[in-house]
C-alpha cells in the first residue's frame, strides 16, 4: 500500500485491515446482540422477542375449529411483514398460507414489542413467530403421539394435521386442548430445513395492499368511534416558547367547540367537527401570546453540540486480522445533516 490513500465509502465498506465502526445508540435502539466480552455467559434464552414474551400462546393460537391466529407486537406500516409473518407461521406450522390470520400491534392482545423501528420486525418478531410456531407444531405432534401411544418421530405434519404412521389424520383443532400452548418456549426449536421450504422464500402478494387501493380501512385515521370529537393543538412559535396569555372565551363560543385545553404551555381545542376544530385552533393561535427565548444550537454547529452531549459509546462491529502487517491507519470523521424521519 504505497500509493495514495483513497478513502471513499465503497472502499471503507469493502473493508481493508481493521475497521472499527463505533457509534452510540440510545437505549431505545440498543437491541443488538453483541454482549460485552467480560460478561458471564447468560442462561440461554429463546431467540427474538420470545426472550421477553416467552409463552407460546402469546404468539400462536390454535382454536378447536382449527383456525390459527398469529400475534405480533409490531405495527405493519408498509414493510410487508404481516405477509412475511403469515408465510413464516404457515411454513413452520405446515398449514396453507391463506388459512392463518395475523393480528398486528393490538395492545390488548399482542406482546409488547416496543417500537416498530430500526428494521427489527423480522429479527425480533419474525424470529419469535418462527420459533414459537415450530414449538407449537412439536407440541401438537407430541399430543398426537401420546394419544396413539406411538413414538413422535414416526409422525409428520401436513395441511393443518398430524399424520400418524398408518395415515390417520389428527387435525390441529382436535389435538389442541386447554392450556396446552400456554407454556414457555424452549431456548431452541427444531426449525424446518430451508431446503424444504414451501411457503417461505416464495413471492406472495402483500396482504395489506388490496385494502389500500380500494379505500378499505387500513390506517389508524380510518377508525371512527361513536361520539368521536376532534382536537387540534396550537403549536408554540418556537422551541421552548412559554405561553404567557390566552383569552379563550371567544374561541369557546365558536360553533361546535367542546372545550379549550390549556395545561402549562400546552394549548389545544376540542370540537365536534374536524374543520371546526381547525378553525377554532386558528383563532386560538391568534389569541395566544408567547414568550420566546432562543434555545436551539446553531444548525452549522449541530455535529459539535451533539457529540459533546453525554453519551454511552459502544462498539457494534469489530474485525481485525493480526497477520496483516505494514498497514496504514486511516482516521476520518463523517457527519451528515440532521434529517427528520417524517411521514406524510
Amino acid at each position, binding site marked *: 500500500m504505497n500509493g495514495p490513500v483513497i478513502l471513499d465509502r465503497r472502499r471503507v465498506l469493502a473493508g481493508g485491515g481493521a475497521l472499527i465502526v463505533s457509534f452510540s445508540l440510545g437505549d431505545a435502539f440498543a437491541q443488538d446482540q453483541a454482549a460485552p466480552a467480560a460478561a458471564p455467559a447468560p442462561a440461554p434464552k429463546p431467540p427474538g422477542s420470545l426472550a421477553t414474551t416467552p409463552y407460546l400462546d402469546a404468539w400462536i393460537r390454535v382454536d378447536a375449529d382449527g383456525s390459527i391466529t398469529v400475534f405480533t407486537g409490531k405495527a405493519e*406500516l*408498509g414493510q410487508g411483514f404481516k405477509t412475511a409473518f403469515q408465510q413464516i407461521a404457515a411454513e413452520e406450522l405446515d398449514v396453507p398460507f391463506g388459512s392463518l390470520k395475523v393480528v398486528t400491534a393490538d395492545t390488548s392482545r399482542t406482546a409488547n414489542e416496543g417500537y416498530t423501528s430500526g428494521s427489527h420486525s423480522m429479527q425480533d418478531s419474525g424470529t419469535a413467530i418462527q420459533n414459537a410456531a415450530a414449538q407449537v407444531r412439536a407440541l401438537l405432534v407430541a399430543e398426537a403421539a401420546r394419544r396413539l401411544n406411538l413414538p413422535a418421530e414416526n409422525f409428520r405434519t401436513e395441511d393443518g394435521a398430524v399424520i400418524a404412521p398408518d395415515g390417520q389424520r389428527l387435525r390441529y383443532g382436535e389435538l389442541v386442548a386447554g392450556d396446552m400452548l400456554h407454556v414457555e418456549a424452549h431456548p431452541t426449536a427444531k426449525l424446518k430445513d430451508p431446503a424444504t421450504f414451501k411457503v417461505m422464500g416464495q413471492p406472495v402478494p402483500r396482504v395489506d395492499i388490496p385494502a389500500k*387501493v*380500494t379505500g378499505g380501512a387500513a390506517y389508524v385515521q380510518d377508525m371512527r368511534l361513536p361520539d368521536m370529537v376532534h382536537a387540534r393543538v396550537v403549536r408554540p412559535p418556537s422551541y421552548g416558547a412559554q405561553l404567557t396569555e390566552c383569552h379563550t372565551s371567544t374561541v369557546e363560543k365558536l360553533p361546535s367547540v367542546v372545550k379549550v385545553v390549556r395545561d402549562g404551555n400546552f394549548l389545544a381545542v376540542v370540537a365536534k*367537527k374536524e374543520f371546526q376544530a381547525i378553525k377554532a385552533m386558528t383563532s386560538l393561535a391568534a389569541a395566544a401570546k408567547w414568550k420566546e427565548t432562543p434555545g436551539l444550537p446553531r444548525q452549522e454547529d449541530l455535529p459539535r453540540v451533539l457529540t459533546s452531549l453525554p453519551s454511552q459509546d459502544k462498539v457494534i462491529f469489530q474485525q481485525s486480522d493480526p497477520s496483516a502487517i505494514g498497514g496504514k491507519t486511516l482516521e476520518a470523521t463523517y457527519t451528515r445533516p440532521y434529517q427528520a424521519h417524517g411521514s406524510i
Partner: protein
Amino acid sequence: MMTLKVNGRDHQVDADPDTPLLYVLRDDLALNAAKFGCGLGQCGSCTVIVNGKAVLSCVTPLLLVEGKQVTTLEGLGSIQAPAAIQRAFMEEQAAQCGFCIAGMMMRAQALLQKNPKPTDDEIRTELEPHLCRCGTHMRILRAVRRAAHLMQTADASTVQRSAQ
C-alpha cells in the same frame, strides 16, 4: 344542508360551505380513500376526481363542488370487483405504506380517462404534484402503464362483445 354527489349517489351534508371537501368525505361520509396528508394542497394524498378532473380535496371548499360529480377511489371498484387502475396497482404491488397511493391513483385515473395512452413523460409530469416518501415511484409508474394497458384491453373486449 348541502347536497353532494359522491360516487354516483346524492348525500345531504350538514357542513359549512367553506369546509374542505376532504373532511366531509372522511368524517361525514366515512370514506377512507382520500387522505389527510398536509392539509395544504402540497402532497396530493387527498386527490379525488371532480367532473373528470383531479382535485386536491383538502383545499377545495364544498361550495365549489356542489352539484358536481365527485369520485373517490371507493367509487371506481372494490376488492371483489377492482377497477383496472386498482387491479394494476395490486398486480404491480405498487404501494409501500400506501398513504399516498389513493391520491396517485385518482390523478392517474383522471389522466387515463382523457389520455388512454400516455407516454412515460406525460405520466411523470401528471403525477409530479404527488409525494411518496417510501420511494415507490418506479412501481407506481409501472402500475399506471399497466392500468392503461388493462383499460385498452377491456375497451377492446367490450367493443368485440358489442360487435358480436
